[in-house]
């Protein structure tokens, strides 16, 4: 029990914050824009790879983390351009960029992984700056500060004129065009920002665990979806600020559940299967409920 309080809880909190960036990215694309973006698995690793390689090359870890954000933006830009300018369906565009990123990430890292064990990361810099030694404390400080920054920027941005147009694009694209918004632009903007956030998450995770690995992004999209679904179900948020907090909260709960399950003996390899089943149940239940009530529902879209 003490173990749970001392270790599992703070560690889940840390993970909830850093993977929260991924979940917010997934939330922006899937829920806000209505753009099912599968680039995420690739852009998460991209962020990790870019940061790791830059740090190994001696670049300041803060700049390396920012560079990851920029790389993620570019990945999102690629996906959204494929969709808006070449009219490739969103799902396929995301998969194409995700697959392409696998090769690109291998090229960036020059191999399957890059170790950061003897390198100075943002965590080291922060603990040096503030004089805190405990690993979990400095992790929480780094993740917390970044989360607060991301939260405030997004909470502000989504209420601006452009932010509103972006949200409305996902809600009613035809109406938004009728009011003079270039919906291609808002889609590109939203998908880019989302992947920037995902890559930021990858960059912090890589520095936290001490390495970047070409396979570390696998299943990120499903994890993000699970977090979003948990957050929405538990907190039933209204309004931009609460939605963002709910997504972070959902990620925390998800990570907490995973940590506890692992402690109770679940094989780490089963994690993705269980997450996938969780998401399937969450997506299927509303349909089955309506089916039981004999409500008619259209067939699922193929794209």
């Amino acid at each position, binding site marked *: 029990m003490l173990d749970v309080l001392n270790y599992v809880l703070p560690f889940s909190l840390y993970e909830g914050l850093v993977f929260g960036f991924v979940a917010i990215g997934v939330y922006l694309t899937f829920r806000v824009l209505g753009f099912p973006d599968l680039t995420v698995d690739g852009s998460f690793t991209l962020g990790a790879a870019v940061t790791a390689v830059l740090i190994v090359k001696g670049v300041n870890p803060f700049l390396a983390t920012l560079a990851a954000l920029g790389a993620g933006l570019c990945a999102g830009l690629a996906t959204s351009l494929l969709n808006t300018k070449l009219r490739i369906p969103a799902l396929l565009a995301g998969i194409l960029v995700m697959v392409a990123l696998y090769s690109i990430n291998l090229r960036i890292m020059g191999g399957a992984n890059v170790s950061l064990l003897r390198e100075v990361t943002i965590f080291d810099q922060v603990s040096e700056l503030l004089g805190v030694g405990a690993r979990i404390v400095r992790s929480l400080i780094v993740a917390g500060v970044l989360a607060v920054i991301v939260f405030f920027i997004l909470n502000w941005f989504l209420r601006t004129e452009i932010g509103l147009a972006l949200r409305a694009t996902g809600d009613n694209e035809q109406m938004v065009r*009728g009011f003079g918004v270039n919906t291609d632009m808002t889609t590109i903007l939203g998908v880019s920002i989302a992947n920037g956030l995902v890559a930021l998450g990858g960059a912090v995770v890589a520095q936290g665990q001490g390495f970047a690995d070409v396979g570390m992004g696998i299943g990120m999209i499903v994890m993000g979806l699970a977090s979003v679904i948990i957050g929405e179900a538990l907190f039933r948020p209204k309004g931009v600020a609460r939605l963002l907090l709910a997504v972070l909260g959902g990620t925390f709960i998800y990570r907490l559940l995973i940590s506890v399950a692992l402690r109770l003996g679940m094989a780490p390899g089963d994690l993705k299967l269980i997450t996938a089943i969780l998401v399937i149940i969450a997506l299927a239940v509303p349909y089955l409920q309506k089916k039981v009530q004999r409500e008619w529902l259209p067939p699922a879209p193929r794209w």
Partner: protein
Amino acid sequence: MSENKSLLKLRQITKVFSRGTIDEITALNSINLDVDAEDYIAIIGSNGAGKTTLLNIIAGVYPPENGGQIIVNGREISRLSEYRRAHYVGRVYQDPHVGTAAKMTIEENMAMALLRGQPRGLRAASNKQRRELFCAALTPLGLGLENRLSTLVGTLSGGQRQALALVMTTLSKPALLLLDEHVATLDPRTAQIVLELTEMLVKREKMTTIMVTHNMEVALRHGNRLIMMHKGRIVVDMNQEHKANLTVNDLVVAFERASGEEFADDNILLHSD
């Protein structure tokens, strides 16, 4: 009609769908139309007459065939994409769900609408001044929406949403207002309310308006000009004096004479009493 008075000029507007296939259909056939500023035109016609296609062409959903010209206030806009035309053209759709965003609040919907055709920046989308403007625009509806600015639009009824869509579209005073059977899906009582609201807004803001309708009675009672379309052509075009004393029966006769066909659209006749 003098050249400089016309707010909207359509020249040789043709639209062919499914070109080169067995389903090829000419939805619009060399339409020429001059709309004066402050005209309130009712367009009527049977299914497939090309009414909605005409609105779609004006709004920029798709371009006309080569050679067609759309001129608003002297500016040729037929190559502009739909979102760029929003500066000139506002539109209320048949389906209230199309004209409003369900997952956003009334205030957010209004804030979207306020900036029609203007560049959007990083300022807050709404503020106290804008909220007051929204309230002032909503109050005349008499639906109490001005007290529910933070309500999600998805929780409103179809009639409320359509009234909101109308206010949103007229909020930024587009040069040209397009109404695409905007009361067709509403129950008769709500339809009446929205029509009266339309009349009031069009008169107050002196907006040039084109209203497509399925209902002859509505076409006779509203607007200062009546146009009847048939198979992609304008077959009847009458002004205020001409239509003032007409009945639905007169309209049917006028249609039969102009098109050379018997009037056989049950849909319109059923709507007309």
